[in-house]
């Protein structure tokens, strides 16, 4: 893979380049090649530099309020120069309603103050790779809802509701010794319900029930390239419970993300295509 090349530019007359310089350094540390234009660049100069330097992306920084005029002007000039494939992102003092408008006009992403530099770097990397068509699929959207995990004290006690009233059927019941749980899967259209019964008081599910009572425990999304995805999420600053996949109750790799990074929801990522046995 060629190194990602980024042009960091200060359009207009604004002289505050602390942010531009910090981002330049952070992207370099993330392994990208970064060219910084210096101050007071017209959109034309920026586009010319971007083409000359053959960059994948342009980062625009403005703190003076001129973004609504200057950022779209860069997009327009790129188009005119037949270089609209160059991704444009931006940052600075930019009010939220302008963020929406600029993104609608074709700025790929506006990063607001306080965004960790890691997040910026990871985002650019992903966007550029997508644009190049390289390793496509690495970070496709999750394919679907694999299952919903429900913590119960006893599967036997919980089952009658699902069987007798909802008329679902039990697909399998397995024990997962590593998690000290017994699991029942009930098929439901394209997805499943997963009833989780703790096998010992030290099981994570037992602790969950003790703290919050019975109820929805996690949601599981099916994805591809689980390990790469975990690495990527980590780079983006998402807190992981499992940094490497482990085998789940369904016999395929899974990993949990920390609820702290997911608005309080315990999210499991799983890769059902890799059912044990027919691993490539």
């Amino acid at each position: 893979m060629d190194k990602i090349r980024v042009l960091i530019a200060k359009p207009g007359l604004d002289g505050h380049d602390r942010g531009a310089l910090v981002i330049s350094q952070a992207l370099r540390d993330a392994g990208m090649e970064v060219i910084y234009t210096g101050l007071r660049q017209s959109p034309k100069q920026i586009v010319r530099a971007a083409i000359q330097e053959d960059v994948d992306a342009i980062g625009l920084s403005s703190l003076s309020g001129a973004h609504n005029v200057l950022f779209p002007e860069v997009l327009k000039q790129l188009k005119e120069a037949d270089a609209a494939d160059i991704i444009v992102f931006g940052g600075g003092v930019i009010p939220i309603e302008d963020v929406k408008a600029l993104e609608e006009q074709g700025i790929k992403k506006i990063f607001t103050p306080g965004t960790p530099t890691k997040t910026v770097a990871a985002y650019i990397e992903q966007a550029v790779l997508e644009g190049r068509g390289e390793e496509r699929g690495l970070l496709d959207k999750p394919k679907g809802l694999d299952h919903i995990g429900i913590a119960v004290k006893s599967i036997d006690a919980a089952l009658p509701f699902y069987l007798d009233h909802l008329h679902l059927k039990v697909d399998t019941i397995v024990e997962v010794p590593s998690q000290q749980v017994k699991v029942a899967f009930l098929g439901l259209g394209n997805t499943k319900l997963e009833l989780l019964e703790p096998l010992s008081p030290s099981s994570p599910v037992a602790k969950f029930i003790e703290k919050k009572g019975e109820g929805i425990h996690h949601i599981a999304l099916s994805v591809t390239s689980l390990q790469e995805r975990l690495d990527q999420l980590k780079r983006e600053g998402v807190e992981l419970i499992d940094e490497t996949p482990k085998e789940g109750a369904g016999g395929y790799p899974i990993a949990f993300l920390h609820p702290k990074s997911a608005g309080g929801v315990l999210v499991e990522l799983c890769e059902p295509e890799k059912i044990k046995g027919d691993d490539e």
Partner: protein
Amino acid sequence: MSEQTSAFEEWKKRTEEELKKRPERKDEFLTSSGTEIKRLYTPEKIDEDYKDKLGFPGEYPYTRGVRRSMYRGRLWTMRQYAGFGSAEETNKRFRYLLDQGQTGLSVAFDLPTQIGYDSDDAMSLGEVGKVGVAIDSLEDMEILLEGISLDEVSTSMTINAPAAILLAMYIAVAEKQGVSKEKIQGTIQNDILKEYIARGTYIYPPKPSMRLITDIFAYCTENTPKFNTISISGYHIREAGSTAVQELAFTLSNAVAYVEAAIEAGLDVDKFAPRLAFFFNGHNNFFEEAAKFRAARRMWAKIMKEDFGAKNPKSHQLRFHTQVAGSTLTAQQPDNNIVRVALQALAAVLGGTQSLHTNSKDEALALPTEDSARIALRTQQIIAHETGAADTIDPLAGSYYVEALTDDLEEKAYEYMQQIKERGGAVAAVEQQYMQREIQRAAYDYQKRVEKEEEIVVGVNKFTLDEEPEPELMRVDDKFVEEQFERLKNLKAKRDYEKVNSALSDLKEAAEGTENLMPHIIEAVKCYATIGEISNTLRDVFGEY
């Protein structure tokens, strides 16, 4: 009575003398419990070490303040930086702030004005009226200051590369009001070195820029004795990410460069030095900040006396404006910024600032609304009138911690200044990008510490909210830009073209020689030459950086 004690008695006597002419704000200052608050608290025994390091307020080395009675005599000037859009709108905001009890004006100019472009210049695209008011000619300046008596207010103008032009306009408006040059009060920022280092609104290369500055010094010494000719600024250096030590060291190194340039231009140090002013940042680390201001005063007094042989006590006094740190404001949970600003402002007051700008809570998002600008001003008023912080002089003196910090900052800043000296002084160091690189490194280190959560920023990397409500923001109406173009077009049609041309060619000739440029710039301004025309004339001679 020992000699040492008599030094204190001497100070008391001289202070009493002065107070006869200019009494304090109140007859007596009391705590809530009825205890009388003394003007000054000192160690029981005043020894040589105390006199050498701290001294008495209004006396060398001025560690405890540049005035004898400090805020008991007169509070600091509450000076809120404002300006946006058209001259008419900004004039309205100024009058509002004066009505609200603000005591000085501070003009923010838009970037085209700051870099010497007319509003209709191609380079001005998108920037007209954005970060400040758009001024193209004397006509705009007349509108900006309409109804404000220039013999009553003091006006600070954040203008650097074209400082001479804006000062010339100010003088011209004053004359039209019937106020003579000698009476006008205020400050022009005029600090070009920090523009190369941190702020970015330079036009010409360093050498001719330094000449413009010494021309202003020379002109003002003779003509506008109450106007501060420069505000040597650490503020932007700190905003760019420097440490407190770097802020001190780079600012004072720049100041030394200005003094050297002026002396080299043949000026008498004791004539121009009393009109040098400083501008610092009020940052987060409370005690370090208070100590920084005290250290700055002591360092400057020593530099002026020992290195430059200045004899006039006013040359030794470091008078400064403080603005609290804009870069510490967060876009997240903006109400928290009110608290940050209050604490930063309190540190500046405890450090003895002469004037103060408190930021508005929404400045990480946009220009302040009228409401948030009012809260910012009220914050200062609360410190002044409710906390008692202004009731005794230099209240932190003698704290083991603060005195140790003061000494430490001084020592470390001297070391840095030494390195700059070895590089050939501030101008050379700027050209070598030395200070720029040092600041950039500090800024990046800080960002990494924030991301590792070694530095906590409340509401940003800790104590965050899942959902941020959208605050109400100030928007500058772009409609006026068209009107500004129109006004400029009309002006160019109605002014005396011959006169403008001849004034500009006189200016060009003077710039090619060594004559003081100020009188020529005043002439050009008076016949309504625009800021772009004047700046371009000088660009032709000086080149661009």
